């Protein structure tokens, strides 16, 4: 009775907290008065004040600052490079700490529904990585804020004026995130059974809700800088905070980052599992971390599959907002970076597939499907080569003369988007096929309609593949651009149809199936190295595409509204940008290794000196896995 009263109070407190946060947010944001400072407040006030005329209201609008080069502090090192490194590190860790609790919650829920405590233990261990990363995120966030205010004071003054009290909401959310995160992690064992477990799961929900709100709030600053809304042509705020936040790129970035964060988080914790698996001294520990690595890879690749489609949406919105911006990204100076993107995504897909193929050795039933692997590998490699074929080549005049133009007579056709759309969609379909045969390898269907179900699945694959190739070739090469762009929707739908119908069909086909023995830990070490390749490629990819997203503003701090007149107001060479991306990637990997070491350290215990000779060497400090 006493316990029930305690929990009921806890529930009411939580609901009150959510309601208060909602009211606070709505009160802060929707009202356009005192809380929301700057020009918008003055506009709203004058609109309801009959004494002031429209001309007076215009005069009260404050345009964006126009700093000169002298207004940018010079500390002897490139300001852009400092902000570049710190911002990217903050984003890497931010992505990790926002993503991990998302799938941890799902795994924890799975543990509750299956009654298998291993899920619960694995979720708890994933959170251990997140908790160390959280402090590092905050440290880089604070450093970034200081660097921005020091090096770009006019820009920050302007953004503060535009977003006003929304920045304080962000700070409050950060406090809330910290509190809920610590309760969620440290309360894991205290809230483990019965209603208490559900309170813990609800805390996980709250943690993810606060984290996602933090992310979309910060996203609105980035999208405002790319596609400002709620301001006039000189940057004076003329709308309320919703008009400022709800720019055309806000939701595309929200979706893209949400999905990408999950894939990235899954890849990083996969590397942790691989590290522990390789270091394991007992078969039981190796089995546990092998299973953990498999789950991480599953999360990373599953989240990665729909990511290109979110990317299409974002690029389509960028083109719709400003064709100039779209062309700068994909047809201009930044276009070559998309070739590097193809290399990195190809690496991710090849590593993910390789891990699955290696993992099939865990089950005896996988022999039935091993014949497919070579064909899947062949398709992946061919598509990868098509994807990395550039449209234009960097050639000398002699080479151009020998080639008969700047494009290769045969391979030139593969350099444009229709060919790449075919390649990407086929790579995604065949990666899903790897998943499907992996998932099927330890099962034997017992339903009477097994043959018909398999025939239907094969038909769906064939129709989707034919449709993707036909749409790409016919509309891509034999019709005009409007149909070319439209055909990519057909291709996306085909790919999604395969994925969704594959998941649904297998769920019914393998209901009540006979399960074959699966031996966790019985996997090659090479498979674990594939799990290391994934987060490195993901990190590099995020650094690359983050740079592209930011660079499309060219010489503008806030596109078309506030010019960048600093010494760094140019798009650097690809080589320089590549070096910067590599530096941040290496830095992130080093920090991640530090996190793994810390996570491992917390599980180690030094024995008292008098006991050391009585314990076998393998069980001393650092000896036990």
């Amino acid at each position: 009775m006493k316990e029930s009263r305690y929990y009921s109070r806890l529930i009411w407190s939580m609901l009150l907290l959510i309601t208060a946060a909602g009211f606070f947010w709505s009160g802060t944001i929707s009202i356009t008065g005192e809380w929301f400072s700057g020009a918008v407040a003055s506009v709203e006030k004058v609109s309801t004040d009959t004494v002031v005329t429209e001309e007076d209201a215009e005069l009260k609008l404050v345009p964006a600052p126009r700093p000169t080069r002298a207004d940018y502090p010079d500390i002897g090192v490139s300001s852009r490079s400092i902000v570049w490194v710190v911002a990217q590190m903050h984003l890497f860790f931010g992505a990790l700490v926002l993503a991990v609790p998302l799938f941890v919650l799902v795994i924890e829920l799975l543990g509750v529904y299956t009654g298998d405590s291993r899920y619960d233990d694995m979720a708890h261990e994933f959170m251990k990585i997140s908790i160390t990363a959280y402090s590092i995120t905050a440290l880089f966030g604070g450093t970034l804020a200081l660097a921005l205010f020091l090096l770009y004071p006019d820009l920050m003054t302007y953004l503060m004026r535009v977003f006003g009290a929304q920045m304080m909401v962000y700070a409050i959310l950060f406090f809330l995130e910290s509190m809920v995160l610590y309760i969620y992690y440290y309360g894991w064992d205290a809230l483990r059974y019965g209603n208490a477990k559900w309170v813990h799961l609800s805390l996980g929900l709250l943690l993810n809700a606060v984290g996602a709100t933090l992310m979309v709030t910060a996203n609105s600053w980035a999208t405002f800088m790319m596609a400002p809304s709620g301001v006039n042509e000189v940057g004076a705020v003329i709308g309320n905070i919703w008009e400022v936040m709800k720019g055309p790129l806000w939701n595309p970035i929200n979706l893209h980052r949400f999905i990408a964060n999950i894939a990235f988080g899954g890849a990083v914790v996969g590397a942790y599992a691989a590290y522990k698996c390789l270091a394991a001294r007992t078969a039981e520990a190796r089995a546990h971390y092998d299973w953990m690595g498999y789950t991480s890879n599953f999360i990373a690749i599953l989240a990665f599959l729909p990511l290109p489609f979110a990317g299409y949406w974002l690029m389509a919105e960028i083109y719709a907002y400003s064709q100039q911006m779209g062309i700068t990204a994909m047809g201009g100076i930044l276009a070559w970076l998309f070739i590097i993107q193809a290399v990195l995504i190809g690496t991710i897909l090849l590593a993910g597939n390789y891990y699955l193929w290696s993992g099939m050795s865990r089950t005896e039933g996988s022999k039935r499907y091993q014949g497919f692997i070579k064909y899947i590998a062949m398709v992946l490699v061919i598509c990868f080569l098509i994807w990395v074929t550039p449209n234009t080549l960097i050639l000398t005049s002699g080479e151009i003369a020998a080639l008969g133009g700047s494009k290769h007579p045969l391979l030139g056709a593969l350099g444009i988007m229709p060919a790449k759309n075919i390649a990407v969609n086929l790579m995604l379909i065949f990666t899903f096929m790897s998943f499907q045969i992996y998932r099927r390898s330890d099962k034997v269907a017992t339903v009477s309609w097994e043959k018909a179900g398999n025939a239907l699945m094969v038909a769906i694959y064939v129709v989707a593949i034919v449709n993707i190739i036909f749409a790409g070739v016919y509309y891509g090469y034999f019709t005009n651009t409007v149909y070319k762009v439209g055909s990519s929707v057909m291709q996306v739908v085909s790919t999604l149809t395969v994925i969704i119908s594959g998941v649904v069909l297998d769920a019914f086909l393998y209901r009540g199936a006979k399960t074959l023995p699966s031996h966790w830990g019985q996997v090659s070490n090479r498979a674990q190295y594939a799990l290391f390749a994934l987060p490195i490629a993901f990190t590099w990819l995020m650094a690359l595409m983050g740079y592209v997203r930011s660079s499309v503003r060219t010489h503008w701090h806030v596109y078309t509204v506030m010019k960048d007149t600093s010494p760094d107001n140019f798009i650097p060479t690809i080589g320089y940008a590549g070096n910067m991306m590599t530096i941040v990637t290496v830095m992130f990997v080093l920090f991640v290794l530090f996190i793994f070491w810390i996570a491992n350290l917390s599980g180690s215990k030094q024995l008292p000196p008098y006991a050391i000779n009585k314990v076998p060497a393998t069980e001393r400090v650092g000896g036990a896995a």
Partner: protein
Amino acid sequence: MMDTEEHKTPTQNPEYRDSEKRWGPKLFWVMLLVILVFFWWLLIYSHGIETKHG
């Protein structure tokens, strides 16, 4: 790692499953609903403005 009984947890023990005081799942699903409504309000609801796409 084979599935064995030793991994089973009492999270779903019958005593709790059949208990009348089992309000935990309701709390969770209601909270999920509240959060989904919140994100609809934050991200999708127009707030009286029209986003210009291009």
